[in-house]
């Protein structure tokens, strides 16, 4: 089985997935949750089972909005059949109580309206979280790069393995962010601190997978010194393919179980993890190791020639 032969096809598939996501990021942006922007999130449950229309709630918020606490133009979304999630700028507790009372009076239908969840984050904290989040991702990447370079120090060009892992990781980050931007646009999902947790987990998983393949390359390079690098890499990918697919399947099983049967509050988190873990396995097989081959052969020297030879090796 010659998998490495089609490496440019794999890169193409990756680009095909990444480009729409990146476009979504550019044009729609990443919908950030209040964890990062600051604001308040109020989730209320209507015991009557009949939540009011979204426009009614928006009108109520606009009416309650004052110059001190500007809560106009909230983002209202239905949760299940009987609850609403309302996202607005920061408000104080007194105003929140007024709003809940008004919701009960006007739309409660004589039954109770209960607060399921109320989260409030000040804008300063939100900004700080966003900065720290970026810092955490950068730090995690750097730490992994250093670890891999040390772990593969006995292989020639050990630095390349770390770099290839980071390239594959960036692939997965882009796929995940793109998926979040697209899903956020259509389903109203927002990137919160759980999303960030998912992203960091995906990075961990992706590198985990990369290392398993790299480890085979490390071992095979010592076993077959005469054989050229491309063949060694291909052989290593094929040898670890069963493991890659099986591990992928077990993780997918647990995640699918969580997505289908777990609570609604983590569904967003789990779906993003599914996307990212799949991307992570793909990139470990079809991106990370092929990048090593491209680097070893210095194939970029042939990319812009009139007759590209590399396409059909």
């Amino acid at each position, binding site marked *: 089985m010659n998998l490495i032969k089609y490496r440019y096809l794999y890169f193409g598939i990756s680009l095909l997935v990444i480009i729409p996501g990146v476009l979504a990021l550019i044009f729609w942006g990443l919908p950030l949750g209040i964890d990062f922007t600051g604001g308040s999130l109020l989730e209320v449950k209507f015991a009557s089972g009949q939540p009011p229309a979204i426009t009614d709630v928006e009108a109520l918020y606009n009416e309650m909005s004052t110059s001190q606490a500007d809560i106009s133009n909230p983002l209202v979304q239905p949760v299940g059949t009987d609850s609403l999630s309302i996202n607005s700028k920061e408000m104080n*507790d007194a105003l929140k109580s007024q709003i809940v009372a008004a919701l009960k009076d006007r739309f409660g239908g004589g039954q109770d309206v209960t607060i399921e969840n109320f989260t409030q984050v000040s804008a300063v904290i939100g900004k700080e979280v966003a900065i720290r989040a970026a810092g955490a991702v950068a730090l995690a990447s750097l730490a992994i790069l250093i*670890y891999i370079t040390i772990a593969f120090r006995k292989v020639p060009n050990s630095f390349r393995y770390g770099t290839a892992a980071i390239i594959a990781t960036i692939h997965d980050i882009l796929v995940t962010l793109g998926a979040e931007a697209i899903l956020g646009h259509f389903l109203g999902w927002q990137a919160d601190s759980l999303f960030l947790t998912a992203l960091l987990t995906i990075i961990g998983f992706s*590198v985990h997978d990369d*290392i*398993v393949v790299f480890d085979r390359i490390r071992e095979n390079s010592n076993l077959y010194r005469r054989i050229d690098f491309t063949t060694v890499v291909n052989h290593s990918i094929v040898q670890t393919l069963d493991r890659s697919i*099986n*591990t992928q399947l077990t993780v997918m099983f*647990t995640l699918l*179980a969580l997505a289908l049967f777990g*609570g609604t509050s983590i569904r967003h988190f789990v779906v993003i993890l599914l996307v990212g873990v799949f991307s992570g396995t793909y990139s470990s097989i079809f991106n990370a190791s092929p990048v090593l081959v491209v680097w070893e052969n210095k194939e970029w020297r042939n990319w812009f020639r009139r007759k590209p030879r590399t396409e059909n090796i």
Partner: protein
Amino acid sequence: MNRRQYNWLILIIPLIALAIWVDVSKQITISNPFKSGTSLIDRNVQTRLGLDLRGGLQVLMEADLPADSTVSTSDLNVTRQILESRANALGVSEVVMQVAPPRRIVAEFPGLQDPEQVVASLQQTGLLEFVDMGTTPVAAGTIIQTDFGTSTTTSTATTETLTTVPTITPTSNPSATPAPTETPVAATTIYHTVMTGAALSSVNVQAATLGGFDIAFTLKSDSATMFADYTGSHINQYLAIVLDKKVISVPSINSKITGGQGIIQGSFTQESANTLAIQLRYGSLPIPIKVVESQSVGATLGAESVSRSEVAGAIGLLIVILFMVIYYRLPGFIADLALMVYAMVSLMLFKLIPVVLTLSGIAGFILSIGMAVDANILIFERLKEELRAGRTLHQAIDLAWKRAWPSIRDSNSSTLITCIILYWFGSAFGASVVKGFALTLALGVLVSLFTAIIVTRTFLHSVLDNIKFTEHPRWFGIQESHNESN
């Protein structure tokens, strides 16, 4: 089986027994055999659920000081202690308060019904002042106005304390109460604040020589000189102790107080002396605090999440167990046993440490099951390769473990590195969501290394001592004909 495998078995079997014992108990007790009535270990090992699972309120508080000012860790710790004692006094049980340096405190109030009230009372009790009454004392309970906090430039005597508390106000959250409560002001006189509670270093109740009780206090050294000067020039005048602008006691100054040690005398009973001492000790926060983030979760949502996650976890685990048996046959079955050991040991650790389980923590745990299986998959794929290469079974097992180890080590190390960074990130701004996830995932990875590598291998060797592989290659998922199928 060689001796080393038996040694592991001696360790593993009691570990399983211990794990089962802890997992099914709510309380573990080992009585002391040498002294009846006492116990060596007596611990509550109930599973601790986070706020998102049991419902409750989480509040992130921050020092309400200019961003460029530094907050000392000890001040922050004292503030946490005071807030915690206030919260406990409110009758809220199992309050968790943690300092998140450099300037934050995270408080969790499980199962609370009325979160606003708690926040308000935490914030409102606050400012303890020693106020110059001159020669005309006012009655205890009167609400007065003081010059503290209103102007930071005019008072000279209070500069020392002002450096730590520049703009303290009782309701420091600007949006908490819309209208300031000004109604019961007794007089329009603005009294001078000599010092605040921040100047006190210790307060004790002691028996007075003439019966009754006194309160002895010690000032911090930087305030002692100022207080000595003040008391020296104000003998026979009154110094009111004022908590949140409300006079709680008006002792008179009998003599110059030098060395920073003084006694408040009065007709105190032990009870009233204690109350005043507690107010002096805990009345004021060394740092003004504001709420920057709050989150409350209804208990019903939490209960629903728990039951759903349990079901989801069970289903996920079942699918993985079936997959392993179907694909890897006998080794898969052994790995499933190891997986159960893994689940039991992890649960034991969660209960013993204790780890507060949140929704994301459970997600981290379920994900770590996937990683635990991965280590076994790596080994079994190797095992198949070695068996195909024609090695004997015991040789193949040892080789498979040896060869799979570097990849297991390196891949799990990278996950642990990510966990450490996540944990740091979570602690830094009090995101228990991220922290819980990192902690359970890291624990899961560590336990899985033990179960996948040592437990599976020991079990496999034990079983193989009693069967002959050559008669049952299918038990290992190997075709009778040794074909290298790639």
